């Protein structure tokens, strides 16, 4: 019965989505040409994608950061929040079984490389493929590598979940500050404030600031989520 409903809905959906997706239509080149001529001059970023989502369409990027904030808050609260009395105790054979010696050694040794790569992707997002989100995700995976490798190194990272949460809140305030600072310098909200100062400071610093703030926020948020999902003991 469910399968029959499934097949009928597939037929209906392909009838509606087919003409949209499959038909041939030339893709307009106006946007690409506009950005080719103005993107570097307006924002200072040679990565045109960064020029768009941190320069022209920065409002959408703020919205996307808030989506991540809401999802991480909701997921962390759901996993942790309803009191530890509901949890079944984790059997002891499960605690060590997922991390063999191979995993803990390789991840423990690779972790610094991954973290460095994450910082690079975050800082150089305006010149090479990358940016705040990508760098933040790589940083979060670096934190998870550290956590996976702690049995080999017999040492845990100094960044506990509480400290990561503090970094997350700080970077949220940094983002809000970057959004509102143009007001103090006489520009509109989210407009690059360095345009009002003149050409002495390169404009691209606004984008680099955004990249850093977003990268820290995404990295810390996803690290908290990952660490929480990894440990089965919700202690703090």
């Amino acid at each position, binding site marked *: 019965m469910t399968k029959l409903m499934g097949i009928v809905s597939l037929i209906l959906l392909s009838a509606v989505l087919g003409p949209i997706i499959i038909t041939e239509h030339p893709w307009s080149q106006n*946007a690409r040409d506009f950005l080719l001529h103005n993107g*570097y001059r307006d924002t200072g970023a*040679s990565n*045109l*994608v960064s020029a768009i989502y941190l320069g022209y369409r920065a409002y959408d990027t703020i919205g*996307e950061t808030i*989506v991540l904030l809401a999802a991480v808050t909701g997921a962390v609260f*759901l996993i942790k929040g309803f009191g530890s009395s509901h949890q079944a105790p984790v059997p002891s054979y499960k605690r060590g079984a997922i991390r063999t010696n191979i995993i803990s050694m390789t991840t423990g040794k690779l972790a610094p490389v991954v973290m460095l790569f994450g910082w690079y992707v975050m800082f150089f997002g305006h010149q090479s493929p990358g940016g705040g989100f990508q760098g933040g995700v790589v940083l979060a995976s670096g934190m998870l590598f550290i956590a996976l490798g702690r049995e080999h190194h017999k040492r845990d990272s100094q960044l506990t979940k509480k400290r990561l949460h503090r970094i997350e809140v700080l970077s949220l305030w940094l983002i809000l500050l970057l959004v509102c600072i143009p007001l103090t310098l006489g520009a509109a909200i989210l407009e690059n404030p360095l345009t009002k100062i003149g050409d002495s400071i390169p404009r691209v610093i606004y984008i680099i600031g955004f990249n850093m703030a977003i990268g820290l926020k995404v990295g810390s948020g996803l690290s908290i989520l990952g660490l929480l999902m990894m440990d089965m003991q919700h202690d703090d």
Partner: protein
Amino acid sequence: MMINRILLLCLFLLGFYGLMVLKNLVKKVFALSIQNSAVILLFIVEGSRIGDHAPILSEDQVRYVDPIPQALMLTAIVVGICVTALALALVYRLYQKYESLNVEEIQRKANNE
């Protein structure tokens, strides 16, 4: 190329079918993720038809692809991750509460509460 678009439509329909028909909650989350990936790939594949280089300015005169779909899809990918994270947290709590991952069993138990 038309074959790309047909395949992406099939991928989307596969995700929708999986979300509807499969009974295991984790498999439903997979299907949701497949759906999102199909739409994201559609934007990027279509936007790359007008050029053959990544849109990073360099000195030579080359034809770049359209950067707008890529910027839009960054947002869409992040939203997809958020939905997956929240869905998995909900599946975890449902498993803790009802000891099962089968959606019909969970609905039956929930209605009898």
